[in-house]
């Protein structure tokens, strides 16, 4: 209790001293000081408001095991180091893409890349990051595509019907990973299959449309078979290979949407 009392007394003394000091200052100086402070805060706020035009965040999402973490490290360091296991937390980094480090001259805007874990228990993390994303890269395992097609299409459907994605018309890149393997599917095949699955999803999900307030948007055009060209935001397809470092198409996409 002594400590408290002492503290109180000391605090009172300090506050008295502070007030005396303030009262000693002549009024004009006081007013100018306050004015400067106000101006400074207003200026900073306005800068923040105006700077919110373009964010530089790119999300790497996809099912667990599709190769996002490897791709993340490829883009960052140019090598996938010793491999990766199932991520439990997102990997974030703001950096200049590895290839551009060497080639581009002049000021290149760093990209804020976030690799969100694909495990279904951690799906809430994706919802956190989607509003801030300037672009989304949806990574699909081109090797084990057909066994996982249902889960992959549901995930992609959730992204495409997310409220922030629709509002911001966030562009999505469907990246087919692991194309270095011989038995990997082509991007055309993957695109067609995903379109078919999402078409089926549209039918069953629209039945529960009133339940999910976030996803009350029906994709595509009613009555026609779904195609990615029907989406309001741009959806493109590309190929990549995380292990061997062939990430040119992904990098082009990122560059396109994060203007230097």
């Amino acid at each position, binding site marked *: *209790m002594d*400590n*408290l009392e002492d503290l109180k007394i000391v605090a009172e003394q300090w506050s008295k001293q502070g007030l005396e000091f303030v009262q000693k200052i002549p009024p004009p100086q006081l007013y100018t000081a306050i004015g400067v402070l106000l101006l400074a805060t207003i200026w900073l706020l306005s800068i923040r408001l105006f700077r919110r035009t373009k964010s530089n965040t790119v999300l790497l999402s996809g099912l*667990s*095991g599709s190769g996002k*973490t490897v791709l993340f*490290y490829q883009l960052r*360091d140019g090598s996938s*180091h*010793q*491999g*990766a*296991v*199932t*991520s*439990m*937390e*997102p*990997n974030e980094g703001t950096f200049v893409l590895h290839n551009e480090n060497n080639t581009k001259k002049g000021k290149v805007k760093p990209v804020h890349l976030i*690799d969100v*874990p694909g*495990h*279904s*228990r*951690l*799906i*809430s993390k994706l919802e956190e990051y989607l509003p801030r994303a300037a672009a989304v890269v949806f990574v699909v395992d081109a090797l084990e595509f057909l066994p996982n097609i*249902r*889960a992959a299409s*549901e995930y992609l459907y959730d992204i495409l019907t997310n409220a922030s994605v629709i509002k911001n018309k966030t562009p999505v890149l469907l990246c087919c990973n692991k194309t270095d393997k011989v038995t990997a599917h082509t991007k055309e095949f993957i695109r067609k299959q995903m379109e078919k699955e999402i078409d*089926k*999803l549209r*039918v*069953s*999900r629209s*039945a*529960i449309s*009133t*339940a*999910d*307030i976030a996803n009350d948007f029906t994709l595509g055009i009613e009555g026609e078979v779904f195609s990615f060209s029907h989406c309001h935001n741009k959806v493109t397809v590309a190929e990549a290979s995380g292990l061997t470092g062939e990430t040119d198409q992904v990098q082009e996409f990122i560059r396109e949407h994060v203007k230097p």
Partner: protein
Amino acid sequence: MLEQLLIFTRGGLILWTCKEIGNALKGSPIDTLIRSCLLEERSGAVSFNYDAPGAAYTLKWTFHNDLGLVFVAVYQRILHLLYVDDLLSMVKQSFSEIYDPKRMSYDDFDETFRQLRIEAEARAEELRKTKQVGKPVSSVKKQGQVSKAGLEGGNKRVSEGGSKKDDGDGNKAKVSTLTNGHSNGNHQMEDDSQETDLANGKENTSCNVAVDLSKLQKLRSKGVRGRGGVRKTDSIGNKSSKVAAAEPAKKATKKNRVWDDAAPKQSKLDFTDSVDDNGNNDHVDIVAADQGESMMDKEEVFSSDSESEDDDEPGSDEKPAEAKKKGWFSSVFQSITGKANLEKTDLGPALKALKERLMTKNVAEEIAEKLCESVEASLEGKKLSSFTRISSTVQAAMEDALVRILTPRRSIDILRDVHAAKEQRKPYVVVFVGVNGVGKSTNLAKVAYWLQQHKVSVMMAACDTFRSGAVEQLRTHARRLQIPIFEKGYEKDPAVVAKEAIQEATRNGSDVVLVDTAGRMQDNEPLMRALSKLINLNQPDLVLFVGEALVGNDAVDQLSKFNQKLSDLSTSGNPRLIDGILLTKFDTIDDKVGAALSMVYISGSPVMFVGCGQSYTDLKKLNVKAIVKTLLK
């Protein structure tokens, strides 16, 4: 010998693997560990068992929560290595000294690791030697001693049942080492003096159990789920003894008990209306398809965040008042500056309070305990950020963990599954199982109503042929909802009735078949066998366990025993377990929603529906955020 030791970040990048031991691991034990243990909030367990075709590993792990690193050691299950825990903590210490977030490769750590390993092995040897001196053992090889000490050290399996199961597992481990050609001594943990006698006893039992072990190997090789596999080993042993006992019992048929001298009533009380008097049923009100929207399709409105902030205040006022004055001052000071590292002792009281709170919300005691251990494991050693109290950090971590558990692991879009089955021209079969009186028949009708509202054609199958009035009850529901019902009256074999119902559904083109079964206690062996037969014969698409929200600690027992019995008594290599949970009587509990958590944690299957009333529209989806908020209020 260690198979592998890995160091990786929580984000998934592997930082270092031991290059000396070049063995490639069979299967993917690390990924399975992460998916089924660490992400399932079971990180408080001691070890994890992984079975792959051709290998049986045990994994042990430790976290460095401050740096966000995970250290995992993998070794063969038959070797009970003592020094793994020791080695892991030493590796953790030395690696955290050289860790740098910018660095990606740590080749220099190889040398350090080699030394650490030699040190740890040497220490283990010493321990072994001192134990060896203490006990006189005749002709026991060194391997035997390692296993013995290892068992005493307690390689606790991830067990969901009582201690009996643990002993059973322990026995199995011992016996399996026997069959693997190590001539170990007997490993009775109780009595050392009877060693030689027990040695003989063990040899004998090993012969008896040898047959079951080969079955065990076969089952293991089919890639049974880790938990299921462990339970299987236990019950295989039990089954062999039980089968022997059941044989003679089958011969004697049961007779009705006669209590007094009067002759027993011979006539059976069977009031089933004959199926073919449909004319009488006009007076039954036919429910118009519009009793309103089923609550499944309505969105949930739950309270805003302001409530939780108010609750923080009274909670925070209590804590300082309880602690000593000095303690309060230091905790305030520390909360401003940020304490160095969280220790177990700091987390202890906060976790205890949290566990009490969970238990007052009707979470089973065992589950609350395991959850707290898991949260402790994930917070230990973490740096407390400034301006936060320990209790709020613990609360945030627990909230995270709860959301993770309650979020379904796979999609629970039943309509999608129904459509998929429709394309294959097969009916989608759902079987409702559960103990007595939880509300299977009522909720079956609610699900039928909901499906009907979404233009799915439903058929009911009355496979509860035991309880009086069950068939009539379903018939009334079917009449009100205007859906076909398949029934065969009472005293028929439910499995056969179900089979015929599915055939009928395929014939008349119904999309979904809802199968009602009789309620049964999880300990009732013959009834569980009958249920298992029904499921094996018909291979339903969804096995829905119906559990009431009023259940307390029994939820753990019910679900684990149901799953165990279904996996044991299954004839095929891939046992069908419980796929989903239907939580009933949710409107009767105000905020004691813990049963949902217990059930989801123990079975790993998601809650697909929640029954919140007694009329057709009272069926809704589980709102994870609302439940977590209620649990932590």
